[in-house]
């Protein structure tokens, strides 16, 4: 994404200054963010000077877009819903609050993945470089924590016993969490084994025993 571009704009009234800034940046009024320049507060200034930029507004646009999409989707699926969308670093985190999750029970992960896939495809179509995570309350966060916890335990075991441990098959996202956890130990290494399918196994091993890893 483009860096923040700040321009100065001056007009006889605030509206005039805003309009000029929009023209210069070639964006609609609602995606413009601006700040009055300090001189404006001097008594008796006869023009209005602003600093204007777009980026923050575009970030909000992405959030609003995701929120609208999920709200309409859940409404069409007859769920009473509330969606809380936040920017999280470079990504977007959308936490759903649903009443009556009975219909999803047991298929929660599948349903969240399906919604996430839809949202991300729609974001790509919008030309956004951001990706979203769709979560129900903190379901995914808890899952991530448990993956990290298991990785932690495995690291301790490999450290103390010097053995090689192979974990259960996991998807790419979870494997990444494990690799990140293992990377905190200089004495340990990890690699993913398996076919090119979706689910590979992560192997954690002590570094001195492997001669060829990088």
């Amino acid at each position, binding site marked *: 994404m483009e860096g923040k571009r700040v321009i100065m704009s001056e007009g006889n009234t605030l509206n005039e200054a805003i309009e000029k800034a929009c023209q210069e940046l070639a964006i609609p009024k609602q995606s413009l963010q601006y700040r009055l320049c300090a001189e404006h507060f001097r008594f008796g200034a006869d023009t209005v000077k602003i600093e204007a930029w777009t980026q923050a507004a575009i970030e909000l646009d992405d959030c609003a877009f995701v929120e609208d*999409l999920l709200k*309409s*989707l859940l409404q*069409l*699926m*007859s*769920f009473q819903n509330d969606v809380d969308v936040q920017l999280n670093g470079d990504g977007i985190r959308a936490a759903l609050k649903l009443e009556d999750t009975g*219909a*999803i029970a047991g*298929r929660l992960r*599948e*349903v969240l*993945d*399906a*919604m996430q*896939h*839809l949202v991300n*495809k*729609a974001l790509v*179509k919008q030309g956004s470089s951001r990706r979203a995570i769709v979560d129900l309350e903190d379901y995914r966060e808890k899952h991530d924590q448990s993956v990290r916890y298991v990785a932690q335990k495995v690291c301790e075991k490999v450290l103390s016993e010097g053995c090689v441990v192979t974990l259960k098959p996991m998807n790419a996202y979870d494997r990444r969490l494990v690799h990140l956890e293992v990377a905190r130990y200089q004495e340990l290494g990890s690699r993913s084994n398996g076919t090119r399918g979706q689910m590979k196994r992560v192997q954690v091993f002590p570094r001195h025993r492997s001669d060829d890893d990088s």
Partner: protein
Amino acid sequence: MKDLVTFLAKAVVSHPEAVQVREVPGEGGTTVELRVHPSDMGVVIGRKGRTINAFRTLVAIAAQKQQKPNVVLEVVD
């Protein structure tokens, strides 16, 4: 169900005006037929059918929630 499928399809295709959805009642349940612009076929199906399967998941959950069992989603060309 028609509205849901139309919404899902329009969210991902590049020719939303070409999206057509038809509900065909059958013995075992309803079949929802989705038609999109030929260049959008791949988009709506997705790699290894991921997108259409995501749609099917959401449609199945909505059907269950609205107590309309056995809704089958098919892409038709």
